[in-house]
C-alpha cells in the first residue's frame, strides 16, 4: 500500500511480452512515452499489436516501432504520416485496422469500464461497417456495434505523479492516456515532472487514481 511504484525503465518494460496488445497514449506523439519506445526497441519485443491514434512519424512516436518491424497489427484512426504502411500492408507484413477516432476512444473506454461494447452512429453505411463493424438496428435506428478494446499493457505519459501512482496530465498530453489507463492489465506511466511523495498532489486534480497504475517511470527530460 505504501510502497512506491517507481521502477526502472528496464523493469517496467520487461512486463511487455512478444505478441502483446499495447495501448499507447498520444496524438502526433504528444503524450506518447518515447522512453518506453526506446526501451522496447532495446529489449526486442516483437509481434506487437499497437493501439495508438495516429502513430505519428517513422522517427518520432509509435511509428518507430512499426518502422522497426516490431508491430504485426496497428489499430489507429489515421496514419497519414507513416508512408511505409500501405506497402507493409500489401506485402502482408502489417495488419491495419482503422477506427473512427471517437469509436477508438469509446471502445477503449468500454474495455476499461466494464461494458460489452459500444453502439455508435459513426460510420454507418461506410467502409467501417463493411470491414470492421456490425450494423445493429434498434427501435428503428441504425448503429454500428464494436467490441471493447483491451490491452495487456497500457503505456501512458503523465505530467505529474505521486509515488502511489496518482496521475495528472498537462494540456493536450492527455488525449488517449486517461482512457487507456483503465483498459490495460498492466499500466505503465512515464512521468515528466519529478515524482512526489504520496499526499503531495491535490486530490481534486488527480485524473488517474493510484490503484489503477502499476508502474511509474521517471522520465529523463532531454
Amino acid at each position, binding site marked *: 500500500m505504501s510502497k512506491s511504484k517507481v521502477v526502472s525503465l528496464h523493469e517496467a518494460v520487461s512486463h511487455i511480452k512478444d505478441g502483446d496488445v499495447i495501448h499507447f497514449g498520444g496524438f502526433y506523439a504528444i503524450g506518447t512515452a518515447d522512453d518506453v519506445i526506446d526501451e522496447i526497441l532495446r529489449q526486442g519485443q516483437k509481434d506487437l499489436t499497437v493501439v495508438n491514434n495516429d502513430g505519428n512519424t517513422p522517427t518520432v512516436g509509435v511509428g518507430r516501432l512499426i518502422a522497426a518491424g516490431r508491430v504485426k497489427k496497428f489499430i489507429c484512426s489515421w496514419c497519414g504520416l507513416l508512408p511505409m504502411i500501405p506497402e507493409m500492408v500489401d506485402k502482408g507484413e502489417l495488419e491495419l485496422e482503422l477506427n473512427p477516432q471517437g469509436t477508438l476512444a469509446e471502445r477503449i473506454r468500454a474495455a476499461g469500464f466494464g461494458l460489452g461494447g459500444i453502439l455508435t452512429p459513426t460510420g454507418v453505411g461506410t467502409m467501417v461497417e463493411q470491414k470492421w463493424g456490425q450494423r445493429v438496428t434498434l427501435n428503428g435506428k441504425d448503429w454500428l456495434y464494436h467490441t471493447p478494446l483491451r490491452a495487456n499493457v497500457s503505456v501512458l505519459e503523465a505530467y505529474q505523479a505521486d509515488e502511489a501512482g496518482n496521475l495528472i496530465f498537462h*494540456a493536450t498530453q492527455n488525449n488517449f492516456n486517461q482512457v487507456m489507463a483503465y483498459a490495460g492489465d498492466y499500466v505503465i506511466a512515464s512521468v515528466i515532472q519529478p515524482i512526489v511523495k504520496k499526499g503531495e498532489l491535490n486530490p481534486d486534480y488527480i485524473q488517474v487514481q493510484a490503484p489503477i497504475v502499476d508502474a511509474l517511470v521517471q522520465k529523463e527530460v532531454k
Partner: protein
Amino acid sequence: MALTAREIIPMRIAKEFKDGMLVNLGVGIPTLIPGYLPEGVEVWLESENGIIGFGAPAPAGTEDKLLVDASKKFTTIKPGGSIFDSATSFGIIRGGHLDYTILGALQVDQKGNLANWVVPGGKLAGMGGAMDLVSGAKHVIVATEHCSKDGKSKILKECTFPLTGLECVSMIVTELAVLRVTPEGLVLQETAPGVSVEDVVKNTEAELIIPDVVPTMPIL
C-alpha cells in the same frame, strides 16, 4: 478585384455563426472563418484532441510543447478555454453538443452524402475524427471549391468515392453558390457576387431545385 474562393467561402460561412456557439473547423478553408466573424460574435473552437477555446498559434519561443491543435501546430488557450481527454472530446462531438462542423469534400451529393477521406484505390490513411464529426454535429457545412482541379463538379447526383457519412450534410458553400440539402432535394439558395444561376448549373452535376428568386450571398 474579384474575391477568391478562399475569401468567399469563409466570409459566407461566418454569417451562420452566432455568439457563443461551439464549432469544429476542418483543415484548409474552414480555418479562415474566424477572421470574418462580425464584431460581437465569438465562437468556441473545438479541437478533436481535447480543447474547447483554443486561440491563435503560439508565438515562436513561447510554445508549450504539450499543447497542440488537431493539425499538430503549437497553439494557445483563450480565457475560459478547457482541456480534456479524447473520450470526452468525442463524447462532446458525437453527443450533439457541437453546433457546427465545417469541413472540405472530395465529393458531396444531392442527398447530403459526403466523401472526403479516401479516393478509390488510393492510399488508405484513415478517417481520423471526420466520421464522428459528421455523425454528431447539429449542422454539417461543406466548404469546398465547386469543382476539382481537373474541372469536374464535386457536387454530384451520387458520390462514387468511399463515404465519410451518410446523408449528413446540411449546407454546401462554394465560391459559386450556397446549396441547401432538403428532403425535396438540393436547393440553390444563393449565388456568389457576379455569378449567375446558369454558371452554377453548368458547374454542377447534381440536380438542383432552383427557386424563382435566387439572392446573392450577403457577403459584401
